[in-house]
């Protein structure tokens, strides 16, 4: 299958040691629009054949970064390299990179077939070759029976598949996707993100995907790059970014984290003790060394908080344990979110599986609760 | 149409209208319709000797006059309102548009102030009625030219619609030369037209004949009037003078004659003899001023306008004769009562010569020269009517100098010029055929 030609490329076999093709390296890349800095000195290495998601709120610079890789925007400073070759001055068309644009940017006057054929036509491939490869791409994306439709006659999901086929038919080593699921309804989003992931696995080329949706990033990515204000805040696997946010922005952006402001009380060989508005926390470690007295934020994921229905014994509680009452029980189907308030007025959220009996029978503002969590689940946000 | 300074004039008309209205109100209020003597200023004609006292019965009547800018000019309207105590609405249009309105919208006018060459058409529309000469006080003083066809016994009569041929309403309601007591149009102003030429670019010898229009020397530098009746007349005179064609009656051609002249014209047009066809007074001035043409069929005020601008243009006096035209007024058949009385008062007022003196200074003659003379300073009279050198700088009715001291009117005195009329502006029997053919000529 032509679209899978990555496998057949001799370079692949011969260059095992140097890793897969499609490695994108950014060094000190910056971009300004007037007085605003969209991308601010980004250093990033995207391994060949990986699925990387650039995640951040709108205006964080993720799309600009993607466009610079694609050649649709010129970097003001820094280097963009693909497999060791500097791309900055290479026109978009000559980069071995294709883009699936936001809203797909299909040619409205061309049929599905013509849309997919366009890149090959521009590369002046012979009509026979074009036909063969377009038909393969259509078959691959399951579009064969839609080949004569115009874009406006297609559903959102179908349009997205056309955009993918159109981008992939030229056999790029890197595929850029700008909010590819943004135009789809939620159910289709869920399905398409699985399909995207599967597609990338089959193609084994680099996918760089931009989104503002954390859940989507977590579901798809090999590596998530969290961005804010033109800078990278954290890079890591979905688990790492989700479980071990290293900074306040990542922790709050990934959602469902209880974030507490406090101060380092003491540091010893076993861990770190914190004081957060009357609540004592104990953490196993910190991303960076901390000293007693240092102001700090801590994050505790709601799903790591356990709930017991019992009143405080009166005596001082151990760290990572607090008495509270639920102000609101939010039933979400597969999980239940308990919005709690401690005696000292701190708001904490606990999320328990629906099957878990611990939330059954809790009456809002009445039932005394004990909330606790493991010290492994206390994340210190130092960077 | 003959002399249009639209923007300035319409402003004048508007302001004068306001003025006139308030004046009128004052007159009505005081029941005093005493004629106000015209101002004796340098640009105005001298005072009318004891202007006609308007009968109180017509005071306050509004007369609607549709016509052209040749005679529908502001000084005349103001003076007439003052003298007659009536209100005048001038509807100033170009010739064809005025004719169209007269023929198709009888409810919109009381008097039609145009030229004899449109009499047949407006009469045919049935919208006009005969003017009773018994109610025209100065009828007998009107010169023989429009009544009998000649000013002097030796003069040429001229082919075509000479006014006297269509002046009198015959018992069968047709128009003819047999005198009756009712006339189709009251003859007022007239002139003779020819062509103007740029005296530095054209040999004087060549300009003594209409044949110049076909002279290869001036190929591509000839300007013509796009109107079929007058434009064709000039060309027919030229073709005849150049020996290209002959006509039994140049003012009333047969179909064959029309076909012949058209064949010649189309051929000449394709050879590039004619540079442009103009439609308005201003266009005719611009064509000559911008150097597009050096010989141009045009009206005498256009020549004056060019001379004032310093363009050395001479109005030719062709040996074959001029093309004459006569202007006047027709009466709407619907005019009755006070309005009809006012119409007659206005016609009589016109004949007293005050208005004739105004148009004289645009180069037009008047049916009763002696009445004009009474209102015109001697210098103006000598220049315009007698063909003598101007004794001083002469101005037109709007105060602009039109003749420098010492200059002489092209063609000489009234008598000389009017005695040499080759043809009158006419509506031929084959008018409709001519219009179609002329269209084809323009289209070729």
């Amino acid at each position, binding site marked *: 299958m032509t679209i899978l030609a990555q496998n057949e490329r001799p370079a692949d076999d011969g260059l095992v040691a140097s890793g897969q093709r499609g490695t994108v390296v950014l060094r000190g890349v910056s971009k300004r629009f007037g007085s605003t800095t969209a991308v601010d000195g980004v250093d990033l290495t995207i391994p060949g054949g990986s699925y990387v998601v650039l995640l951040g709120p709108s205006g964080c610079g993720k799309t600009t970064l993607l466009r610079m890789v694609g050649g649709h925007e010129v970097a003001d400073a820094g280097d963009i390299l693909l497999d060791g070759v500097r791309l900055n001055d290479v026109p*978009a068309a000559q980069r071995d990179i294709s883009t699936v*644009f936001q809203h797909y*940017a299909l040619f409205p006057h061309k049929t599905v077939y013509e849309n997919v054929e366009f890149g090959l036509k*521009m590369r002046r491939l012979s009509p026979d070759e074009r036909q063969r490869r377009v038909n393969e791409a259509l078959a691959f994306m399951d579009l064969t029976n839609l080949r004569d439709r115009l874009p406006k006659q297609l559903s959102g999901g179908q349009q997205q598949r056309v955009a993918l086929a159109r981008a992939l038919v030229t056999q790029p080593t890197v595929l850029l996707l700008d909010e590819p699921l943004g135009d789809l309804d939620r159910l289709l989003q869920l399905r398409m993100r699985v399909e995207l992931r599967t597609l990338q696995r089959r193609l084994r080329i680099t996918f760089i995907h931009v989104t503002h949706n954390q859940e989507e990033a977590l579901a798809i990515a090999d590596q998530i790059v969290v961005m804010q204000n033109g800078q990278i805040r954290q890079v890591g696997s979905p688990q790492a970014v989700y479980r071990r946010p290293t900074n306040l922005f990542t922790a709050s952006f990934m959602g469902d984290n209880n974030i507490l402001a406090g101060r380092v009380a003491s540091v010893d060989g076993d861990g770190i003790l914190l004081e957060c508005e009357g609540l004592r926390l104990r953490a196993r470690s910190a991303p960076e060394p901390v000293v007693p007295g240092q102001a700090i934020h801590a994050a505790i994921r709601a799903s790591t908080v356990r709930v017991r229905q019992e009143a405080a014994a009166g005596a001082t509680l151990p760290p990572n344990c607090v008495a509270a009452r639920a102000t609101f029980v939010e039933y979400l189907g597969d999980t239940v979110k308990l919005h709690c308030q401690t005696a000292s007025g701190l708001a904490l959220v606990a999320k328990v599986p629906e099957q878990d009996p611990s939330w059954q029978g809790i009456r809002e503002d009445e039932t005394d609760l004990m909330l606790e969590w493991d010290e492994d689940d206390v994340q210190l946000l130092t960077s | 149409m003959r002399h249009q300074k639209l923007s300035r004039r319409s402003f004048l008309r508007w302001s004068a209208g306001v003025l006139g209205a308030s004046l009128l109100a004052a007159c009505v209020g005081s029941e005093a319709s005493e004629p106000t003597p015209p101002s004796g200023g340098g640009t105005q004609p001298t005072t009318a000797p004891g202007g006609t006292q308007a009968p109180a019965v017509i005071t306050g009547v509004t007369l609607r006059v549709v016509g052209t800018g040749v005679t529908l000019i502001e000084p005349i309207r103001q003076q007439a309102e003052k003298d007659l105590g009536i209100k005048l609405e001038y509807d100033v249009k170009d010739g064809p548009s005025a004719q169209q309105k007269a*023929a198709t919208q009888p409810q919109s006018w009381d008097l039609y102030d145009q030229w004899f060459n449109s009499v047949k058409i407006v009469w045919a529309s049935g919208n006009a009625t005969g003017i009773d000469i018994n109610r025209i006080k100065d009828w007998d003083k009107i010169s023989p030219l429009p009544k009998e066809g000649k000013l002097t016994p030796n003069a040429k009569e001229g082919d075509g619609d000479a006014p006297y041929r269509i002046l009198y309403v015959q018992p069968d309601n047709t128009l003819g030369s047999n005198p009756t007591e009712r006339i189709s149009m009251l003859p007022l102003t007239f002139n003779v037209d020819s062509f103007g030429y740029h005296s530095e670019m054209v040999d004087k010898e060549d300009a003594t004949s209409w044949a110049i229009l076909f002279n290869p020397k001036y190929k591509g530098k000839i300007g013509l009037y796009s109107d079929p009746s007058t434009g064709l007349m000039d060309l027919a005179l030229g073709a005849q003078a150049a020996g290209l064609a002959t006509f039994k009656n140049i003012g009333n051609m047969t179909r064959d004659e029309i076909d012949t002249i058209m064949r010649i014209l189309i051929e000449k047009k394709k050879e590039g003899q004619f540079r442009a066809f103009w439609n308005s007074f201003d266009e005719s001035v611009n064509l000559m001023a911008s150097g*597009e043409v050096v010989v141009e069929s045009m009206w005498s005020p256009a020549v004056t306008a060019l001379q004032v601008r310093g363009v050395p243009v001479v109005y030719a006096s062709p040996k074959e004769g001029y093309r004459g035209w006569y202007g006047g007024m027709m009466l709407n058949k619907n005019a009755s009562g006070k309005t009809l009385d006012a119409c007659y008062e206005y016609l009589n007022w016109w004949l007293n010569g005050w208005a004739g003196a105004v148009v004289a200074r645009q180069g037009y003659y008047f049916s009763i020269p002696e009445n004009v003379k009474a209102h015109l300073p001697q210098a103006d009279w000598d220049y315009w009517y007698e063909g003598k050198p101007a004794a001083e700088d002469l101005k037109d009715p709007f105060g602009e100098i039109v003749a420098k001291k010492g200059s002489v009117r092209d063609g000489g005195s009234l008598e000389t010029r009017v005695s040499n009329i080759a043809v009158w502006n006419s509506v031929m029997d084959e008018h409709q055929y001519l219009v179609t053919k002329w269209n084809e000529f323009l289209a070729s």
Partner: protein
Amino acid sequence: MSSYSLPEAVPAASSRRLSGNAVWALLLSLPLLWLLVFLIVPVLVVLIVSFFQPTLSGFERAFTLDNYRALLSSGPFFSTLLNTLLSALITTVVTFLVGFWVAYYLALVVPNLRTRFALFIIALAPFFTSFLIRAVAWIPMMGREGVLNSALLSLGITSQPLDFLLFSNFAVRVAMAQLYLLFMISPIFFSLSTIEPAVLEAARDMGARWWSILWEILLPLARPGIVIGAVFVFVLSMGDFATVRLIGGGASTSVGLSIQNFVTYMQFPQAAAAASILVLVTVLGVVLLLRWGAIGEEL
């Protein structure tokens, strides 16, 4: 409980919809009425008059085919019609060739909206003055002693003034193109403006050069605008008589001018017959243009 409110809500909504429909019907009938009064009735009147017998000062209500017979058997009328058609086609093509690039520049090259708007207004500027003034201004520009001829002479490009620059078919076509350019620019500008920039980016991303983008993307997407502009310009130049009269100076001609002459000399039935023929030819031309536009869409 909520199920009770639903049946109640339905009749209320439908009655509201009914009155809404009445309003809509009224609103829609207004343009129809407009069309009827200002288009269909006049066309019918013209058609009827074209079968009347002309007289010296109008017409008689007697049926005749002579007006058509005279026109259709007249060589000059046919050459006038052909010349009108040719002028209209040339004007349409020229305004397209020029107007497309102006629209292209405005819609796709000028980056910011304010500049774009300012330039559009500047492009409109000549249309702030009256047609007559613009037409009269051609004489000092294109005349024998005009600016252009003087420049050509002083540069030694020509040794004699070029007469065809004024009072010629050439001059009329240039003037009409200038006059009607805006009617081509505007619709093309609007169709080019609706193209998503990402679509052009996508084309470039796939290796399309400037020429391919023009041919594969811009022209097909601008086609509705081009067709509308072409219909505008074609119809306007088919009916033109004022430009032909003033710029043509008698050396050029059009059916519109013939009609005007017929009307001026009150030969209304001939004018009506010529007008009917002109309308027929114009409508045929428009149908062909629209069909061409529609076929393009299908391909």
